[in-house]
Each structure stands twice: as C-alpha cells, then as structure tokens.
C-alpha cells in the first residue's frame, strides 16, 4: 500500500507582505485605485462644467480642500511610481530586431521616457497657451 500523503500548504492571506518584491507589485497594481479616484473627480468636473459657470467654480473651490490636495498628491506619487516601474518592464513586451539583434533594453526604456516628456510638454503647452 502506498504511504504517499502529499501535504498542501495554504497560501497565507498576507502573502504579498512577506516578500518585498510582491509588496512593490501590489503597490504598482494598487495605484489603479487612486487613479480611479482621480479620474472620477475629473469626470465630475466635466459634468459641473456642463452645468454652467457657477457649478464649475464651486467644483474648483472644492478642490482647494486640504483633503482634495492631499488625495491629488498621493495619486500623483502613485501614478509616477506606476510609470517608472511600468517603463522598466516595457522591454519585456517589445520584440524589436534590428540587423539580426534584439533592440537593447536601454533604448526601449529611454524611448518611453522621451515619449513621456514630449507628451507632457505638449499637454502643458495646450493648457497654458
């Protein structure tokens, strides 16, 4: 008779706290929650804009609330963290070959940052001009 009795270990609920790599991954993915909040506030602003000047100014006023400022700052930090970690992973999803050699990871990452800067400057120009 077989004496086999394989033992299956349970995955602890806090598995993502036990390894710094997993914690960073959860923070990267968790950034989506704050970005959702940010998008909802922005969408709310658009709705208020459609309701006239008084409504829109009230929305702008509400954004001066310290809690609103804090939320936006935290969302910005998370968005930047997501961007940096995502860009560093980007070469894994890119399969570009030049003259029989795979494009260097550094080129792909720098390309992402270059595009990021160009788009940011364009956005700033559109907003400020």
């Amino acid at each position: 008779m077989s004496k086999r009795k394989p033992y299956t270990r349970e995955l602890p609920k806090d598995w993502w706290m036990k390894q710094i790599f997993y914690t960073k991954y959860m923070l990267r993915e968790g950034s989506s929650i704050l970005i959702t909040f940010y998008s909802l506030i922005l969408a709310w602003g658009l709705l208020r804009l459609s309701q006239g000047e008084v409504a829109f100014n009230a929305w702008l006023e509400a954004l001066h609330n310290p809690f609103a400022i804090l939320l936006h700052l935290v969302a910005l930090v998370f968005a930047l963290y997501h961007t940096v970690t995502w860009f560093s992973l980007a070469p894994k999803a890119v399969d570009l070959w030049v003259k029989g050699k795979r494009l260097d990871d550094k080129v792909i990452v720098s390309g992402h940052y270059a595009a990021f800067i160009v788009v940011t400057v364009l956005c700033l120009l559109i907003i400020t001009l």
Partner: protein
Amino acid sequence: MSQKIIEIDILRYRPEEDDQPFTQTFDVPYRADMSILEALQYIKDHLDSTISFRWSCRMAICGSCGLMINGVPKLGCKAFLRDYFPKRIILEPLANFPIERDLVVVMDDFIKKLEEIKPYIIPEKTESGDKKCLSEGTYKQTPEQMEKYRQFSMCINCGLCYSACPQYALDKKFIGPAALTLLARYNRDNRDAGSAQRMKIVNQEEGVWGCTFVGYCSVVCPKGVDPAAAIQLLKVESSKDYLIGMFKPE
C-alpha cells in the same frame, strides 16, 4: 581557531508519521565555498540520514535541487552558505507545490503542463495533407532565426518560476511561466508550423491572460530565461490573433 557553525532550519514532513510539517534545526560546520546542496549532503551523511531532498548534477544543469532558501526559490547548488553566514538559513520545499516528503515536492502538475503545450516541432503539412517527408530534405535555420527563440530554450524545468508566481499560487489552472515559455520557444522557431494549434492554449484565461506581470519568475530564474518576457510577447501575439480573428474568422 574553533570551527565556525551555521544554523540551518529545515521544514520536514514525513508522510507516514506527521500530519503537518515541522521545523528541525541542524548545526553545520561553516565553509565559505560550501553550497546549500553540500550542506544538505553534510546533514544527510553526518547528522540525520532520514532527510530527503532531490539533487543530481551539482552544477545548475539538471534543475533537481530547487528549494526555498529564506523564502526565495533557488537552486541548492547555486546558493552558498557565505551569502547568509552568520545568519541562520531557513530551507523549505518549493512553494506552491504539494510536499511529498521533507524538501521533495510533487511536480506532476508542472510536468503535465509542460506536456500540454505540444513541446515539439510540428512539421508543415504538404499539399496532399501529409507531413513533410525526411527525404525532402532537412529544415534549415540561420543563426538569426535561432536567436529568436534561443533564450527561451535554456529552461531546465527546475520549477523555481512556479514557486515565485503568485498567480499560480492563487489558481493552479494557470499554465504558468515555464510551460508558456516553452510554448513561446516552439512558436518562435521557424521550423515549426504548430503556432495555430498552440495559440488556442495561449488565448485562454488560464493561458497568458492569467498572468498579471508580477515579473518575479524572471528574477528567480537561474538560467536567465526571462519567462515574464516570453509571456508578455505571447500576450501581444494573442491580441493580434484576436484582432485578425475578428476580420478573418477561421
């Protein structure tokens, strides 16, 4: 000078006696050039002959001696006491696999998945529907064509990436890093004509879309295979497959 000692905790499980695993501590004489695998052999030879672990080549080729070292999946032959000394070392069987005995895990599910993805060259069919005959000549491959899949063919099936994958931990149906990488290896081979068959596996929820790009598989891989990259590239292929399928159904 007195002999330096390093403490090694081993998670033990003896199916005929134990209901659950327990930790046993061993004092091993420290040597800077001693690998974890050698320490285990020292324990088996001098301290407790009942301890079980897998090993074979001692040089990171066979992929047998994978285990958790202080919570990180590593090959016992490729990790050294000097990287932990004087702190204690905690050895556990590879995570996400059932424990057979002590440091030996049940890898059946992993092996089954490796077989499922058709890990062989599927030859092109000729016009008459037959496979290409050997007399018609050999398949040719340039170094450039080989370079497209070479990295993904370096896998030694040690299973470290499955231990590193939280998605596999949460859902055992997920095909997982090594098997998907092996799939990518054959799909990227110019001699192979089986991509269409394998894309059906790739496109499933349990295929590449079960991966959330944690990326730890590539960190722990002892052979630099980069399974995370293989899976992300397959996601691109799967998306293309979906788009093409919308306009050109089979």
